[in-house]
Structures are given as C-alpha cells and as structure tokens.
C-alpha cells in the first residue's frame, strides 16, 4: 500500500515538474491552477473540516498580494514614488534586486496574514454558522474598499508590480512563477496532509460535528479554530504574493480582494471536489479550472452562463462533491468495510 501511494505522489510530482516543459504555452494557466488548488485546500480546512464557511480567506490572499509587491518595491525604491501615477521616474529592478525582493516579499506575504488571522480570529471565530459567514464576507469587501483608498499602494490607480528582469530567455518569467506556485502547492499539501494525520483533524471534525460537545469534552475549541485559520492564512498569503507577481497589476477589488471571483471560486472548487477530504479540493480545483478555461474559449460571451449551469449541476447531482459521490458509489475503495447483510437490514428497518 505504501508503495502504491509513493508511486502516485511521485508521478504527480514528476508531472508537475515536467508540465511547463511539456506544455510550454500553458505555463500561466498551470501556475494559476496551482494557486487555485492552494486556495481550495486551505479553504477546506475551515469550510470542510471545521464546518465554518469562511468567505474571508480572500482577505489573506489580497493582503499577501499587496504586501509582497510593496516589499519588493519598498526594499529598493521609495514606494510612494513608484505608485504615484504621474511620476515621471521609472525605476528598474536589477535581477538580484528582483529576486531578493520577491523572496523577502513572499515571506512577509505569508507571515503578516498569519498574524492578522490570529488577531481577527480571536474576535470573530466566536461567531457560528451564518453569522460567521456573513461576518467574513464583510471582511473581504471592507478590505477591498479600504485598500482602494490608500495612496501609497496606488489606491484606485492600482499597483503595477515590478516587471520581470530580462535574464535571457522569454520563458524564464513563466517558469519562475510556475515553480514558485508549484513548490508552494507541494508545501501546502504536505503541511495539510501531515496535520490531517494528527489529532488536530479530529478536533476540527469534532468542532464541525458538535462544537458544544467538543468543548464539554475539554477541548479548547477556540485555540484550534484560530490555529486552523492561521494555517490557511499563511498559505493564502503566499498564494496571493505569487499571483500578484504573475498578474503584474494589482487592483484593489478586481485582483487582490476579489471576493466576487476568487473568494467564491475557492468555495466552489472545494465543494465540487468534495469538502472534508484531502484530495477533493485538488480534484475540484483542477476540474473547475479546465471547465472554466474551456468555457472562456468556446462560449465567448456566455461563459458565466455556462459556469452557472455547471454550479447548478454540481449542487444537484454532486451535493457531496466528486469525492463524496465516489465514496458513496465505491465505499470499499475508501477502505470502508461494508457488510451487505447489515446494509440490507438497515434499509428494511426504515
């Protein structure tokens, strides 16, 4: 069994490493796919395992995006002059400055949202159910409006991130951002997988199933909820930082705090794949991305209608997601022992 798992992971790894060379024209889409998977996996920690439907994870993503770009510029040049629209000065990063700045930027983009998650989590994770969902929805909207008014990060003008330095090959930029997002994805997966194999996941599930009972059992649910959110924030911030560099232009409500698209997509992807599973968000995000790109190519002008139909179909036919549907259909493949006689007896009882 271990061997079989190893083969799977190795083949995914090899595929991931080779992908930008096999499909050189699709590097950007592949990088975005990695970012989407990260967002889906991290959303699943709240929405799937913990039962807290968060629309606020976009806050950490946007925060990471702005922080990474600001640090990357601010380390070497005056940030205000960079973002001021009428500025006649043009600053150019040397390759060393670009990569150094990006590295430090990513670190900041991951760490600061983690701290923010800890702070706001302390105050709002006490809310439950719909109240929590609405509250987090507000967080993302508020962040978008506030950042759209801060002059030093470009306000309504937007923030053009440093252009990729000219280091020979035209392909370098795509490869660089692809590997950044792929490595982050691997990192996210490993961390999430390893915490899911500990007591931590059981606590999260206990919170989902009955929070009061979990508390009565002596579990400090608040602590776990906050830690769970901080883990999500760390990787969302990282993903945001990479996405900022990849897109090259940050707009407060359309790119960074894009609750209308990214914020909803991360929920959809996790539900499509099957929330509360490890592989669900991965599969969900991949299928979602492929469909989305396909719709955008073949249903020009109608893509959102097609996407809407897809969502309706998911909700009606796969309410438990693809993994949930598979589990229902082939329970034995998920290591569940089914006693036929027992199952029949249960059906008859009803």
């Amino acid at each position: 069994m271990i061997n079989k798992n190893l083969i799977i992971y190795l083949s995914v790894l090899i595929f991931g490493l080779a992908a930008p060379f096999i499909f050189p024209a699709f590097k950007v889409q592949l990088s975005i796919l990695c970012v989407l998977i990260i967002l889906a996996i991290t959303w699943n920690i709240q929405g799937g395992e913990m039962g807290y439907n968060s629309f606020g994870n976009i806050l950490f993503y946007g925060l990471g995006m702005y922080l990474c770009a600001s640090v990357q510029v601010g380390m070497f040049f005056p940030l205000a002059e960079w973002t001021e629209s009428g500025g006649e000065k043009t600053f150019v990063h040397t390759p060393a400055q670009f990569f150094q700045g990006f590295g430090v930027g990513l670190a900041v983009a991951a760490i600061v949202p983690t701290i923010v998650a800890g702070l706001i989590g302390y105050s709002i994770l006490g809310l439950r159910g719909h109240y929590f969902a609405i509250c987090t929805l507000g967080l993302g909207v508020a962040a978008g409006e506030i950042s759209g008014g801060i002059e030093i990060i470009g306000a309504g003008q937007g923030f053009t991130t440093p252009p990729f330095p000219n280091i020979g090959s035209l392909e370098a930029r795509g490869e660089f951002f692809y590997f950044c997002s792929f490595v982050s994805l691997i990192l996210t997966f490993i961390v999430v997988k390893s915490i899911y194999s500990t007591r931590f996941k059981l606590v999260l599930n206990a919170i989902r199933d009955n929070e009061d009972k979990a508390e009565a059992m002596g579990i400090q649910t608040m602590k776990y909820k906050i830690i769970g959110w901080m883990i999500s924030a760390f990787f969302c911030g990282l993903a945001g930082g990479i996405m900022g560099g990849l897109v090259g232009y940050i707009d407060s409500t359309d790119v960074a705090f894009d609750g209308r698209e990214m914020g909803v997509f991360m929920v959809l992807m996790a539900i499509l794949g099957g929330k509360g599973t490890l592989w669900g968000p991965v599969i969900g995000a991949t299928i979602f991305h492929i469909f989305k790109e396909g719709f955008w190519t073949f249903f020009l002008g109608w893509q959102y209608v097609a996407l809407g139909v897809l969502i309706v179909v998911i909700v009606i036919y796969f309410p438990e997601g693809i993994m949930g549907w598979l589990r229902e259909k082939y329970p034995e493949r998920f290591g569940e022992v089914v006693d036929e006689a027992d199952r029949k007896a249960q059906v008859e009882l009803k």
Partner: protein
Amino acid sequence: MKIKNFIITFVSAIALILSTSSISFAKVVGDKIILGAAVSLTGKYSSNGVHTQNGYNMAVDRINSMGGIKVGGKTYKFDIIYYDDESNPKRAAQLAERLISQDGVEFMLGPYSSGLTKAMAPVTEKYGVPMVEANGASRSLFTKGYKYLFAVLAPANLYLDVAIRTAVELNGGKGVKIAQAFEQDAFSQDVRLGILDAAKETGSEIIIDDKLPKELNDMAATLAKVKATKPDVLVVSGHTKGALTAIRQIAEMKVDVPMLAMTHCDAAKLSKQHGKNSQYALCASQWHKTLTYKDKWFKDGMTYDADFTKMFGYAPPYQAAESSAALLVFKDAFERANSFDQKKVRDALAATDMQTFYGNIKFAPGGQNVSKPMVLFQVICDNSGKCENKVVAPLKWASAKLIHPIPKWSER
C-alpha cells in the same frame, strides 16, 4: 485504494486534453494578418467594450474591402481574434499571455479602460509585441518606459482640464470652487489628477473631493453635499455608469450647479437615455463627428458617423472612433515597415505621423498621442425635446456657444 487509480487516470486525461488543445494560429496565415484583442464583453465595462469591438470590426471591414494592406508586394487582410476579459485586469493579463503564447499572435489591439491596459502592457512589453491601444488614457501608462505601447488618444489628465480653465475664464480669471467625485479606477483617478493640477494653476479651491465605488449606482451623498455647499463646478467621472447615475440623481434631487463637467456622456448615450434632464452637461471627448479631420478610408467624421450608424444601429461614441483609428495606424505602420518583423513594425509605429478622420496621430516617446487635442461638447436640447451634443471648445471647432451658467431647475 482504487481511488489512486482514478487520480492517475484523471491526471493523464488532463495531459491529453492540454496536449490536443494547443492549436496555434500564426501571426500571418495566407493573406491574413491576425491581430489579438481582449475586450470587455461582460462585466462593468461591457457597453464600452462593445463600442471598442464595433470600432475595430468596422475598420477591419473597411480596410479589407478597400484593398487591404500591402506588404512586400503582396496584399493582406486584417483578422482579429477576440477574447472576453470580463472587465477584470487579472483576466486581461492572462488573455494577453494566452493570445501571445498559445495563439501565436504577434500584434495586439488594446482592451477597453486604463486599468486593463495597465494589466496587459507588461505582458506585451515582455514579448516585444507591438500594441496599439485606443482606450487606455491613464497618464501612468506612458511614464513606465514601455517601448511597444502606442495610444491613439490623449492622456486622461487632459480630459477636463479645459472645463476648469473655461470656468475660471468665465469667472473673470478668478479661481472657482470645485466639487468633484471620481470612481476608484485608474482612468477616473487620472482625470482627478488633471483637475488637481488645473485647480492649482488657476488658484481654484476644491471643496468636495469624493471617491465613488466601482459598480456605481448611487452618489446621493455627494450631491447632498453639493446642494449644501454650492460649488461653481461639479466634476463627475466614472465611465458610462458614472455619467448615467450623475444625470439621473441630479435631476431627481434638483441639484443646481452652474457648470457640470463629465466624461463618457456619448458612450452612455446620455441625450437619448435622459433627454432634457441631461441638458447643459459638459462632456470631455476624444472625438466628435463635426471635427474637420479627413482620411481616405472613412472620409470624415460625418461619414463615419453615418456609416457606423448604418452598420450597428447607433451613433458612434468616441470610443468606437478611436478604436477604428487604431487599425488605420496599424495598416499605415505595416506598409511603411514593409515587413512583419515586430521590431521594424514597432519602429514604424513610433514614426507614425498621419491624419485620420478621428484626428492627427503622432506618438510621443512615452507612446501617447500628442498631436490631438481634447474637445468639450455640451448637451443642448431644442424646444421639441430633441437633444444633441454640440462642440463648445476649443473655439476652432465650436458649433455652439457654451451655455453658462446652467439655468436653475426651478426656471427650466
């Protein structure tokens, strides 16, 4: 653990889909020069995105039917690959990448709006793909040192500069009190910077400086302040929705202000949608059909207006006219470069110096068009209630006299 098999199958299926779907277009296929464009067909800029697309299509039709483009002794025709950027900068940047690296496009047309152009420019610049854009006016586009970006329009900070100066002039050279409200996007914020500069130079005072949200539907709070403070000029900019919202609510709230200066009046079809309520609004425009510029393809503004109306069923706003002009610039550059080499075409574009029905086009080193002034028109209605946009400034083209101050609502 059969689920793992499923995953393997799944991954290989994706691989298969990806490898079969990379159909590549080349920049020049047979006798076609293929240009790439991402325009907003959906989302908040969709109406202007369609104006842009119609402008492009009209010019492609016209150039192709009038003999096409002659390069190296052979005749070529234009063709455009369109994508929908959904009025979203993130999508626009992705599509630029996609047009270039997947569809193999080597020459691009711009999207609608400054924000989206800002998102696409770094990508086209990286690949050295010449982009002629007609709808990104933000000044910051032209200070980044882009070499492959050319804009046929005047930068955004000049849009309403004239309005402020006119107001000051009419006030006997003394500074005026300005109330302004701008959408939080790259273009409108740049118009704002232009007003700030003009206010500083003329000694005018800005008494209200509001920011309006994107997806603009309500600006009652700003108008309430305007009613209370009585400024001399009210400036509003927020694309099509901004213009419509402002006129609707000014009429509803009966806000009296001596001068109302806006952008996007013609794109919003103000005079048609709001009739007499839109009367006296002063609008910045890149182009107007009565201007006397001429070219071989569209003849002049009036003919363009008539042809466009025949083809698409509505009068062309300046967004359509400037988009058509972008194709004329490309044609001219291809013929002068006499080659499809991107560098040579880029150099030919940089050396452009021509007149089109839309105006003179000559690019500054930053890529903006410096030889075409902005015009201001005023919505003027006759007694039967029919409203028209009449040019009032600059004086050279003025077909009507500016009506100032705007009569009070109680006297209309």
